[in-house]
């Protein structure tokens, strides 16, 4: 089963971008981004927020796409990384940085999105539409997998556990 996990943390503190993006950079085995340069995503995300005077409220959205062991063997790290590029295109006007981690028993992709639009400075309000588009894409590309969307309520991202997820019945 391929799981798309929505981390239900609002990330309202000033250091949210440094902490979360720092975490996904530290453990990255592959890394890329959209609307920014992956080698300095924190500068780019904070710079955009400051420029639009939108450096308050929810700083980022955080998603994890994970694969179960049998599926891991059918997908390369680069393919998994390319899912981040696809999801970024669905989001279209928001900076994203994403990286593949292999620091748990599941290969997984962390995906962080700046909540400020780089086209007009509006805050993200797209809800689950891009998620559903992304799931449809995955379902078409990999019909042999079952693609599920979950919520997760972690205390910290290090304590994230899949068994804590609560299935989200949408779409």
């Amino acid at each position, binding site marked *: 089963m391929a799981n798309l996990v929505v981390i239900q943390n609002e990330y309202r503190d000033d250091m949210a971008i440094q902490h979360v993006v720092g975490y996904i950079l530290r453990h990255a085995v592959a890394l890329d*981004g*959209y*609307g*920014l*340069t992956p*080698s*300095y995503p924190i*500068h*780019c995300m*904070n*710079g*955009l927020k*400051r*420029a*639009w*005077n939108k450096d308050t409220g929810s700083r980022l959205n955080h998603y994890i796409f994970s694969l179960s062991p049998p599926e891991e063997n059918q997908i390369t790290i680069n393919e998994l990384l390319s899912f981040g590029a696809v999801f970024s295109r669905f989001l279209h006007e928001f*900076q994203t940085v994403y990286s593949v981690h292999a620091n748990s028993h599941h290969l997984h992709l962390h995906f962080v999105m700046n909540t400020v639009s*780089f*086209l*007009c*400075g509006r805050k993200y309000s797209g809800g689950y539409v891009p998620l559903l588009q992304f799931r449809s894409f995955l379902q078409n590309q990999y019909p042999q997998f079952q693609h599920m969307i979950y919520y997760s309520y972690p205390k910290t991202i290090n304590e994230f556990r899949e068994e804590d997820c609560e299935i989200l019945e949408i779409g």
Partner: protein
Amino acid sequence: MSSQKKSRKISVKFTESEYCRLEKNAELAGMKLGPYVRQCIESSTIVVTPKASDLASLLCKLHVALSERGLDDDETIMKELKSLWLTLL
């Protein structure tokens, strides 16, 4: 807080030749640097008003355009873009 930001001035440390290179790279990626951004860079000063958003927006679009053309690993371009991002921090 917001009035402080509006009156704060920041320097963009670009020489004329560096700016020309950035402009050339932007054109190569199918982007044109708008007159406001050009004026900001040429005068080496940006007033942090909502217009700083023009620069931020342009930088993001430039990153996307460069990435689509496979130029996002060019160290020179990235160094120039990083300097511009730092001015927005």
